[in-house]
């Protein structure tokens, strides 16, 4: 189990670096799909199958399709940049160093006495059996009922984004002369 996890983590890191170095946008998008799929595999090992399914379907599927269709409208090649990569590298190294310094205080991975496992009172996992009339998946119970308003808000965000995309991409047929003006 550990060997598989470490292989996935090594591949994840390698894929991310490859995406950063790549000039060909089409290949970079494909590698982003691979990256999403690998992170979905790691989520499955981390006992979160629901998130893994969603990440594989949405991250590796829908996001890739959306980006490829954008690429079809905009052009494939990334122009070689003249900027020096030194300043971004410095910023990233300093930020990463600060974040890693911050993790030294964090509760350890997988420890049952981590604060996240004690608060809020985890008995809601047991109660969900009664409250949801025997629904076996606790994640579904929380998503659809205990945190139902959150999911309603999420749906609102998706609706708003959909309307905004339609408004942005709509072609105005009634005023063709506006298309010509700068």
């Amino acid at each position, binding site marked *: 189990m550990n060997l598989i996890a470490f292989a996935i983590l090594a591949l994840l890191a390698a894929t991310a670096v490859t995406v950063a170095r790549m000039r060909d*946008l089409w290949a970079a998008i494909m590698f982003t799909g691979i990256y999403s799929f690998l992170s979905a595999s790691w989520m499955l090992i981390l*006992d979160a199958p*629901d998130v893994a399914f969603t990440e594989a379907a949405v991250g590796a599927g829908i996001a890739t399709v959306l980006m490829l269709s954008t690429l079809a409208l905009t052009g494939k090649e990334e122009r070689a940049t003249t900027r020096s990569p030194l300043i971004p590298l410095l910023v990233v190294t300093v930020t990463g160093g600060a974040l890693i310094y911050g993790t030294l205080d964090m509760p350890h991975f997988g420890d049952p006495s981590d604060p*996240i496992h004690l608060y809020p*009172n985890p008995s809601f996992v047991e109660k969900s059996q009664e409250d949801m009339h025997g629904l076996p998946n606790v994640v579904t119970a929380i998503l659809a009922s205990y945190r139902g308003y959150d999911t309603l808000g999420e749906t609102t965000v998706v609706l708003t984004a959909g309307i905004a995309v339609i408004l942005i991409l709509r072609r105005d047929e009634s005023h063709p002369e506006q298309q010509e003006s700068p």
Partner: protein
Amino acid sequence: MSIEQVVGLYNYWIVVFLMMTGFYIVIARTNLIKSIIGLNIFQTSVFLLYITMGRINGGTAPIIPAVVADAHAHAHPADAHATDGPAGHSLHETADELIYSNPLPSVLMLTAIVVGIATTALALALIVRIREEYGTVEEDEILELDRYS
């Protein structure tokens, strides 16, 4: 730096590395599509950060097996709501010796994934619009065009 610390914290370090790779793509590249790819990588690393925190050693996915659920229903038919233990009653002591990983991060990240794809779609639509208007998706060329217009 002890070996215990490395074993207990390596998940955060992987996440920080992935996060910084995404951040580098966002700030070092001028192509707008490449920036969106960087943001996606950054976003996925945040999902991984939350999911790794929900994991318990020796745990399983928070889906209650039918056998356990049946036994539980027959054991406490009426007073099921009285079964909440004292505060600090951890997940791993309940449910007939079965250890469940924490379901709460999963729920939060499910919401975040869907919201993330919505914002990505919006950003890509804006890029298509920018390309129609300026004829390029390179950030510095767009700034140049803006300056001389």
